[in-house]
């Protein structure tokens, strides 16, 4: 995020926006601090949204997402 360059962020990329909507609900239900952002232009020029999260909770997030979805990609920002 613009205001903090020290934090290490990851994004999860989904096959469709419906997946993002479902994943957001799942992760918020687990009280995990995530953020919906547009897919960064350096990753894709397509219009899309993805889920951003801090490195320190990335293991928990990946575990939940991989249990519930297929075809998710993770990128470091």
């Amino acid at each position, binding site marked *: 995020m*613009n*205001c903090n360059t020290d934090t290490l962020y990851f994004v999860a990329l989904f096959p469709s*926006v419906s997946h*993002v*909507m479902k994943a957001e609900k799942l992760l918020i239900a687990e009280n995990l601090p995530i*953020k*919906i*952002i*547009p897919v960064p232009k350096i990753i894709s020029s397509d219009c899309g*949204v993805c889920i951003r999260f801090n490195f320190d909770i990335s293991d928990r997030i990946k575990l939940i997402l991989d249990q519930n979805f297929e075809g998710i990609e993770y990128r470091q920002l």
Partner: protein
Amino acid sequence: MKHTIDARGLACPQPVILTRTGMKDHSEIEIIVDNETALENVKRLTESSGWDFEYSSSGDNFRINIRSKDIVSENLAGSKQTANSEKNDTIVVFSSDKMGSGDDDLGSILIKACINTITSLDTIPSKIIFYNSGVKLAAEESGVNDDLEFLHSKGTDILICGTCLNFYNISDKVKIGTISNMFDILTAMNNAANIIKP
């Protein structure tokens, strides 16, 4: 002679409208209000118009005294325009906590991405306004608070409809921006060169 406006018992935005009307014909006014929101609204109006502002509280009431800095009553429109032209004159209006109409779940995802994208624009808006369910975006756990704080730190004014916060019962969850009223919101929209309404 000092003009007196008794605005006790009047709902927002009446006190501020009465004050503004009074400022056209008088250079010194006493306004009596019975709530803090009205006090703050009158304060903002007088300060943005370059008037002196002071108040004292007695019981539940506030006695506000305002005085034109130029003894001859100045034209308000002139001083407002100068203040506005300093910044990029685009304002963004969130009248809903969804972006567009159609699927609500999609709309709430889109609006989060939208607010995050505003932080990356070349020129940030001078004001962001929230009303009706849009005020939910300004609440703490909306998921966009860090973006709003960032914009606020860069000089964007954040105006949030107080009536709407009360209606949705989330006044205590909003820690950012200014609780605003119909008059200030319409004035901002009226003075803006561009309005973005996602």
